[in-house]
C-alpha cells in the first residue's frame, strides 16, 4: 500500500482550481486560434481576437478568465493500492476553499437550493472512481452555469437511428444560441442510464479536443457550424470548437443521449499524485 496524506490532496486540489480558472486550456486556445484564422465575418473575427486577448490578460494578470468560476467539480481516480491518511472529501473541499480564496475566485455556491441562503465556495461536487495501481489522478472542471443551464437529456427508443440523435443534438445547440457564450465545446454522453449518460457528457469535456475526435463528433461539428451562431451569437463560421463523445454499453430497452455544453472558456486542470 502507498499512503497519501489528506494535506497533499488539499494542496493539489487548490493548485488545480487556480490553474483551471486562470489559464485557459491549451487545446481550447489552439482551437480558438484556428477559428480566428479562418473567420471571414469581421465582427466575429474581432470577437475571436478579444477572446484570445482575454485569456492572455487572465494568465498574465492572475485574474479569473470568467467571473463565473463555476461549480467546482472534482474528478478523482484512486488506485486501489492507495491508502488515504485523513478524510478524502474534507481534504478536497478544503483544497477548493483554499484555491478559490487565494486566487480571488467567486463564491457561487448556495447551501440551500430552495431558500437560496448561505453563500460559499463549497461543497464542491466530487466524482470518485477506483482504478488499478497506486496513483491518484485529480481533475478540476470549474464549469460556469450559463452553459450548464442548457444541458439536455433525451431517452431515445433503442431502434432510433443516428440521424434522430444528431437532430436532437443540433437542435439543442440551436435553442441554446447566443445565451451560453458560443463558440462551444459540446460534451456528449451516449448509453448507460439517464444519470450515467449525463456524467459521461460532462466527463467528455475533460478530454483533449484534438485527441477526442470521432466520426460522429466530426459530422456533428460540421452540422453545428452551419448554424451561423458564431461568437456572442452574432454570426460567424465557428459556432462550435469541438464535439467530444463518450459512450458506454446500455440496456436493450433504451438509448440515453446527454448533452453538456461548455462555453468558449473551457477550463480544467489535472494532476497525478
Amino acid at each position, binding site marked *: 500500500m502507498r499512503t497519501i496524506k489528506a494535506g497533499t490532496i488539499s494542496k493539489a486540489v487548490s493548485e488545480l482550481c487556480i490553474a483551471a480558472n486562470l489559464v485557459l486550456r491549451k487545446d481550447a486556445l489552439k482551437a480558438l486560434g484556428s477559428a480566428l484564422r479562418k473567420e471571414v465575418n469581421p465582427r466575429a473575427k474581432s470577437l475571436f481576437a478579444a477572446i484570445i486577448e482575454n485569456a492572455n490578460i487572465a494568465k498574465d494578470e492572475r485574474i479569473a478568465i470568467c*467571473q463565473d468560476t463555476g461549480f467546482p467539480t472534482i474528478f478523482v481516480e484512486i488506485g486501489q493500492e492507495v491508502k488515504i491518511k485523513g478524510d478524502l472529501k474534507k481534504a478536497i473541499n478544503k483544497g477548493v476553499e483554499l484555491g478559490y480564496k487565494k486566487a480571488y475566485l467567486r*463564491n457561487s455556491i448556495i447551501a440551500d437550493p430552495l431558500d437560496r441562503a448561505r453563500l460559499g465556495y463549497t461543497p464542491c461536487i466530487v466524482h470518485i472512481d477506483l482504478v488499478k495501481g497506486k496513483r491518484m489522478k485529480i481533475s478540476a472542471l470549474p464549469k460556469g452555469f450559463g452553459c450548464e443551464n442548457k444541458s439536455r437529456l433525451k431517452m431515445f427508443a433503442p431502434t432510433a437511428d443516428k440521424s434522430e440523435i444528431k437532430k436532437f443534438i443540433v437542435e439543442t445547440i440551436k435553442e441554446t444560441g447566443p445565451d451560453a457564450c458560443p463558440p462551444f465545446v459540446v460534451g456528449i454522453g451516449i448509453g448507460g442510464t439517464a444519470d450515467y449518460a449525463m456524467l459521461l457528457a460532462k466527463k467528455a469535456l475533460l478530454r483533449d479536443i484534438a485527441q477526442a475526435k470521432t466520426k460522429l463528433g466530426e459530422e456533428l461539428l460540421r452540422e453545428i457550424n452551419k448554424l451561423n451562431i458564431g461568437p456572442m451569437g452574432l454570426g460567424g463560421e465557428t459556432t462550435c470548437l469541438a464535439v467530444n463523445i463518450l459512450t458506454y454499453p446500455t440496456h436493450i430497452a433504451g438509448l440515453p443521449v446527454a448533452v453538456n455544453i461548455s462555453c468558449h472558456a473551457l477550463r480544467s486542470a489535472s494532476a497525478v499524485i
Partner: protein
Amino acid sequence: MKRIYLPLTGEIIKNLHTGEELLLSGTLYTARDQAHKRLVEAIKKRKRLPLDLKDQIIYYCGPTATPKGKAIGSCGPTTASRMDRFAPILLKAGVKAMIGKGRRSAEVVKAIKKYKCVYFLAPAGLGALLSTKVRSKELIAYPELGPEAIYKLKVKDFPVIVGIDSKGKDIYK
C-alpha cells in the same frame, strides 16, 4: 467607435441603433437575480429603494472577489433572459439601459419601446478583459448577497453593442 458619456439622456438613446458598437464611460450599477427580486419586491410594496433608479444603467454582473491592487475582479455579463421577468418593472421605475448577454423576451422588447430604453450586449465570457475597463467598485446594497450585491462601477471605454434599440429592433431577430 462611438464614445458615450453617461448618464444616458433621451437624446442619446434616440440616436443609438441596433448593431452599433459603443464605448461607455461613467457609472453603472450591477444587479442580477437576487438583487432584481429584492428591488422588484420593494417597488411593489412601495418601500424606499437603496438607490435612485432614474436614468441609471443596470449591468447584469456578479464579479469575482477583487484581487489586491485591482479595482475589480473578473466582471463579464451574465445571461440576461433570467432577468426578463423583472426588467419591465425596473424600466417603468426609471432604469434607462441594461447590459447583459443573450436574448430577451417579447415582453422586455415591448417595455424597451414603451419607455424608450436600450439593451446593450457586453462581450460574453471576457471578464478579465472587461475588468481593465473598470476604475472603481463600491458596495451600494445587499452585502449579504456577496457577488450578487449591488455595486456602483465607474467605467472608462467599456465596450458594448446595441442589442435592442429604443425602437425595439432586436439584433437576434
